[in-house]
C-alpha cells in the first residue's frame, strides 16, 4: 500500500497498463512531454517513448476518431479530453461511432477504448471548466460510464476500463484530485497523502465495473451519489445526525441496481445527489429506476439534490454547487415525510 493522490493513482494505472500490454497507447492535448495539464500522464512519454504517449492536435473529434480507428486496428487507446466541458466536439465520434461499432458490424469490429476526462466544479473554473456531462453518455447505448471517488478506486477502475472490451467513459472528479472535498469550501482539505482513503494497493489490481460500493451502512435513508458528492453526502449525513446508507455508484452504466434496491428496500427512503444540472440529469434515471424497483417500499418521495438548471457560474460557485446544507435540508425533509 502506498499513499497516493488521485492523480498519482491514475498515472500508476496508466503505467501498469502500458507495462503489461503494449497495445495500450496514450494521447491527448498536452499529455505527452508535459504529462497533461493535471499531470495524470506525467513520465509516461519518457518511459514508453513518443509513439506510445504523445501530444495530439487540439481536436477532440480527431483524438476520439483516431482512437476509434486504433481500437478497430487492435490497439487499446486511452485518451484524455482536457476538460469534460470540451468533449462536445467529439460527441459524434463517441455516440455514433465508438458506441455502435460492435453492434453495427455484428462484432466484426470492436472498439475497446477509454476516454478520460476531468469533471465537475468547485475550482472556480466557470462554465467551461466545471461541467458534469455524464447524462449525455449514459443515454447512449453501447457506452459504459465510470466515475471514481478515491485514489484506490481510480486506479482499479481505470485498469478495469482499459481491459474492458467496449468503450468506457472515465470521468475524473477533478475536485478530488488532491484530496477529498466535502463541500465545506471555507475549510482546508486533508490531502490524500494524509488521508486513510489515500492508501492505494501496489501493483496490478482491478476494481470491477458495474459494482457500487456501500461507503457507509445505515438504516434511515439511502443516499445515491458518485464522485465528489460522495464526500458531501457523508459530511451532510454526519452533520444531520441521520443514519444514512451512502452508496458510491462508481459505475453509472451498467448500474448496480441490485445494491441500490436492496438498500432502498431496507431504508424506505432515497436521496440522490449529483453535481450536474437537474433536468434530464442522471438523477432522473436513478429516480426512475428506484421507483421501478422499490415503489412499494418507498415511505417517502425520492428527492434529488443537484446543480441548478443554469450554466455553471463563476462568482456564484458556492450557491451553485450542491453543498452539505442543501443535502442536510433534503435529508430532514425526507425524514419528516
Amino acid at each position, binding site marked *: 500500500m502506498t499513499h497516493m493522490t488521485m492523480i498519482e493513482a491514475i498515472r500508476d494505472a496508466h503505467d501498469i497498463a502500458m507495462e503489461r500490454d503494449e497495445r495500450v497507447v496514450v494521447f491527448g492535448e498536452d499529455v505527452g512531454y508535459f504529462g497533461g495539464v493535471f499531470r495524470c500522464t506525467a513520465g509516461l512519454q519518457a518511459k514508453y517513448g513518443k509513439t506510445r504517449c504523445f501530444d495530439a492536435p487540439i481536436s477532440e473529434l480527431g483524438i476520439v476518431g483516431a482512437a476509434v*480507428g486504433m481500437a478497430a486496428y*487492435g490497439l487499446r487507446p486511452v485518451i484524455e479530453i482536457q476538460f469534460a466541458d470540451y468533449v462536445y466536439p467529439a460527441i459524434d*465520434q463517441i455516440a455514433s*461511432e465508438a458506441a455502435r461499432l*460492435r453492434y453495427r458490424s455484428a462484432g466484426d469490429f470492436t472498439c475497446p477504448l477509454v476516454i478520460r476526462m476531468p469533471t465537475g466544479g468547485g475550482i472556480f473554473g466557470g462554465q467551461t471548466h466545471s461541467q458534469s456531462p455524464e447524462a449525455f453518455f449514459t443515454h447512449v*447505448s453501447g457506452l459504459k460510464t465510470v466515475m471514481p471517488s478515491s485514489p484506490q478506486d481510480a486506479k482499479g477502475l481505470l485498469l478495469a476500463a482499459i481491459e474492458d472490451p467496449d468503450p468506457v467513459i472515465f470521468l475524473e472528479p477533478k475536485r478530488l484530485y488532491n484530496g477529498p472535498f466535502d463541500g465545506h469550501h471555507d475549510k482546508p482539505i486533508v490531502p490524500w497523502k494524509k488521508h486513510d482513503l489515500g492508501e492505494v494497493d501496489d501493483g496490478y489490481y482491478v476494481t470491477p465495473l458495474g459494482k457500487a460500493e456501500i461507503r457507509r451502512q445505515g438504516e434511515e435513508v439511502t443516499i445515491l451519489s458518485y464522485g465528489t458528492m460522495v464526500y458531501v453526502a457523508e459530511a451532510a449525513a454526519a452533520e444531520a445526525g441521520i443514519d444514512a446508507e451512502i452508496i458510491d455508484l462508481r459505475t453509472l452504466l451498467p448500474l448496480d441496481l441490485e445494491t441500490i434496491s436492496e438498500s432502498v428496500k431496507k431504508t424506505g427512503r432515497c436521496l440522490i445527489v449529483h453535481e450536474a444540472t437537474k433536468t434530464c440529469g442522471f438523477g432522473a434515471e436513478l429516480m426512475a429506476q428506484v421507483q421501478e424497483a422499490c415503489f412499494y417500499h418507498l415511505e417517502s418521495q425520492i428527492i434529488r439534490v443537484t446543480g441548478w438548471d443554469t450554466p455553471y457560474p463563476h462568482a456564484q460557485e458556492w450557491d451553485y454547487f450542491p453543498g452539505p446544507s442543501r443535502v442536510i435540508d433534503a435529508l430532514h425533509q425526507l425524514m419528516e415525510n
Partner: protein
Amino acid sequence: MNKTAPLSLNVPEPGCRPGDEPDFSDFEIPKAGAVGRPPVDVDPNDIRDMAFSIIRVLDSKGEAVGPWAGTLSTQELIEGLYHMITLRTFDARMLMAQRQGKTSFYIQHLGEEAISCAYRKALQKGDMNFPTYRQAGLLIADDYPMTEMMNQIYSNLKDPLHGRQLPIMYSSKEHGFFSISGNLGTQFMQAVGWAMASAISGDTRIATGWIGDGSTAESDFHAALVFASTYKAPVVLNIVNNQWAISTFQGIARGGVGTFAARGHGFGIPSVQVDGNDYLAVHAVAQWAAERARLGHGPTLVEYVTYRAGGHSSSDDPSAYRAKEENKAWPLGDPIERLKQHLITIGEWSDEQHTDAEAEVLKRVVEAQKEAEAVGTLGEGDMPSPRDMFEGVYETMPPHLVRQRQEAGF
C-alpha cells in the same frame, strides 16, 4: 470612414438545372498522358499543379498513354472489366429488388464503378478501407461473395450483420472493408487512426479513407488531414467527387478553389486529381499513393473526378434538381465503355465477348440473388431473431439489457 456599397451574399450555382442545356464547356479536361508521374518521395511543393490537372491514361481513341500507363496486364484489365460489369449488374438487380419491396433502401454506383474496383487491386491483403456507401467495388473486386452482400441487403437470417444495419452498410474485416457508418465523414478520421496504429505497431499495412465531395465539408475531413499531416500516417485519403451531394452541386462544398484535391496543399500533403472514369488511371494513382504510404512517405490526397449518373439513393429522383441530359453530357464518359473500348483497341476484346461477359455476369448475379432470396428478403422468409437485437451492444449483455430482453419476451 468611407461609405462602401452594400455587401451581398455569394451563393454558388451549378451550371445547369432542370430545363437548362447541360454545358461542361468550362470544365477543362487535360489530355490523357499529359500529367507527369513523380517519384513516390516527391516534395509536395513540387507537384502543386497536380491538384489542378487530371491524371488520365485512356485517350479518346481508347489508347493507354503517358507515364501512368502500364500498371496492369491485359488479364488484369479483363478481370477489372468483369468487376465493373458485375457491380453494375448487381446494382441494377438490387435497385429493382428494392422497387419490388424486397428491401427498404439501396444505393448504386452507376458511372463510378472504376474507382472502387480499380482501387482495390492496388492494395494488399491486410490493408484496410474505410469506405462510404458508394464503394462496394472494393468487395466485388476482392471476390467477397455476392450472396453475402445480398443477405445483408435483404436483412435475412444469413445477413452477417444480423439485420441490424441499413442495406448496403456492409462490414468485412477479412476483406479489408471497415463497417460503413451512416454518418458522413466519420470514417475518414478513423482511417487515419487505423494507419497511425499500424505505424505505432511497426506493421506494414496501410489504411485508406474514403469520402464524397459534399462530405469534405464535414469536420472529420479536417481532423483527418491534420492528424495525417502531423503524424505522417500511412494512409491514402480518397475523395470521390461525383459532382453531386444529393441535390447539392459540388461547388457548395468546394467554394472558391478549383478542386477538392487542393485542400491538401494547406497540409503539405501531396495531392492529385485523377480521372475517376478511367480504370487504368485510377489503378496507377492508387498504386502510387499506396506505395507512398507503405514506404513511410505518409499520406496522399486523391480526388477522383467522376459523375453520379444515377439518383443519390433509391429514395432520390434527381430530375427534380438537375437536367436529365447532364449525365450524357458528362465529358469523362462511362468507365465500363472506356475500358471495353481500350481492350477492343488493343485487340484483346470484342463486342461479342462483351455481350457474353454481360450475360455470364448476369447469370452469376441472378444465381446469388436466388440463393439469398431463398433465405429471405426484408420481412419475408427467414429473418434474424428479434432476440438478436439485444445482443452485441456490449460484449457481455449487462443486467439492464437482460431485463429489457426478458420484458420484450425474447
